[in-house]
């Protein structure tokens, strides 16, 4: 680990100002950043500890939603009875990720900003445009079984590893931030992440020193919520594919649907195509499969991860079958 200057922030404004410097990083749970710092993949000159900021509350909004503070741990969010009753999808997704030890540390804001688990991002002996811009992408021709099939580029095929963010994307969550100049803004979660394009090292639209202060959950939409995750072992593994589905039925016909995938892209992949395909259809296996075909139409495999495309369709079918109460 390279040496760094430690700065314990006592208020939001000073935290943002301190982290606005070029090589500074915020740290909260640290479950991802400390790991990356040990490998010197991350080497901040300054670490701004935000854990003592008052951002650890879950509050009701006047609209009937919840505002989850950026420092609310994954465990605390999943244990909160308001979250459990209104957003079971989010609780399932959080509990599908990592282990309790990690969830006790990992925060809401940090989970959104965790970095890819692409093996070549971690392997400092291999080229990686995300780690060393311009060095190339070893995953393209490498063991890319865990990598993305949607929305990525020839410069980077890394997948976003979060489960929590997939559920939040289906819930149309809004990310609230404060910048060093004191200005606040609200970013729809789907617009938080930047497509890799030719600059995969730039992962979000956040400016230097811009701090996520909370995630705003709108009131839960009508319909049954399901989070379905497929992975290599029954627990404590990243998703090969996951699906967040919210299905609202009018009799046996789909009134509204929300579909987001994990493990397929650089961000949680909301599929407007799948949703449009479902609306108005009778909730049958054929309809679910049509949605799967629509969702994966632009998918592209890189060899070892080709299996993700049919797996994503089948996982969607299973999630929708469960959400429709047909399972």
């Amino acid at each position, binding site marked *: *680990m*390279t*040496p*760094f*200057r*430690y700065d*314990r922030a006592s208020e939001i404004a000073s935290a943002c100002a301190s982290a606005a*410097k070029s*090589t500074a990083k915020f*740290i909260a749970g*640290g*479950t991802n950043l*400390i*790991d990356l710092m*040990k490998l010197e993949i991350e080497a901040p*000159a*300054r*670490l701004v*500890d935000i*854990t003592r900021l008052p951002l650890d509350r879950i509050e009701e909004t006047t609209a009937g939603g919840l505002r989850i503070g950026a420092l609310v741990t994954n*465990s605390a969010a*999943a*244990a909160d*009875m308001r979250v*459990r*009753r209104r957003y*079971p999808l989010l*609780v*399932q997704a959080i*509990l*599908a990720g*990592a*282990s*309790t*030890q*990690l969830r*006790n*540390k990992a925060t809401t804001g940090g989970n959104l900003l965790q970095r890819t688990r692409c093996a070549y991002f971690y392997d400092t002996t291999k080229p990686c445009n995300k780690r060393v811009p311009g060095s190339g992408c070893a995953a393209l021709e490498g063991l890319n079984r865990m990598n993305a099939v949607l929305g990525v580029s020839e410069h980077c095929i890394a997948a976003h590893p979060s489960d929590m963010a997939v559920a939040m994307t289906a819930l149309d969550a809004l990310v609230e931030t404060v910048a060093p100049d004191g200005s606040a803004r609200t970013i729809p979660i789907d617009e938080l992440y930047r497509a890799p394009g030719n600059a995969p090292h730039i992962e979000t639209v956040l400016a230097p020193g811009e701090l996520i202060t909370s995630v705003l959950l709108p009131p839960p939409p009508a319909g049954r919520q399901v989070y379905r995750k497929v992975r290599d072992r*029954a*627990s*404590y593994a990243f998703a090969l594919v996951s699906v967040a589905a919210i299905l609202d039925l009018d009799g046996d016909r789909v009134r509204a649907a929300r579909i987001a995938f994990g493990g397929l892209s650089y961000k949680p992949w909301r599929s407007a195509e799948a949703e449009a395909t479902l609306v108005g259809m009778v909730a049958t296996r054929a309809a679910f499969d049509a949605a799967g075909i629509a969702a994966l139409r632009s998918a592209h495999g890189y060899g070892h991860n080709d299996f993700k495309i049919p797996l994503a369709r089948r996982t969607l079918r299973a999630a929708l079958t469960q959400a429709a109460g047909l399972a």
Partner: protein
Amino acid sequence: MATRRWFLKTTGAATLALASPPAVGEMAETAPPQSEHVRLTVNGRPYALDLDPRTTLLDALREHFGLTGSKKGCDQGQCGACTIIVNGQRINSCLALAVMHDGAEITTIEGLAGEDALHPMQAAFVRHDGLQCGYCTPGQICSAVAVLSEHRAGWPSYVTADVATAPALTDAEIAERMSGNICRCSAYPNIVAAIRDVAEGDRQ
């Protein structure tokens, strides 16, 4: 840790500084690590020390306080051997910086037993043979103690059918809740039995 790599980097920076003196602001960012004063209460006993801010809680416990019960397995949060209880919650101490936990109350495996008797979870692990080589055991036991308090608090898990309810602590629930602790000897069935035993308050 003064590795050769670190030595080369820092001496390289010093040479560069001689050649062209950087501005004061930049100097502060490249300065060698400060020492941070850290106070911790570990197993009821106060500790205070000046630590390099890079020191993890695990290294503070093992290398500075001499509490070697918590084990370093993977050192990257994947195995659970370093599990300790901080302010009532279990965490991986390898992925926590000591300086960030100034003022924390910590329980390690060394703090579980009473004066004359093992903690019930330690006794159950012995009774059910919940270990083979024993390297993961301190983390397993700290985790298991926390599982019971999390369950008492009504926390759901990934295998809980209805997350709005507080589930019974079935074997499937125990296994899921313990999945952050890997046992290379695969003593899992006996670990689950030990935890079930304590959960049921069955002393046999």
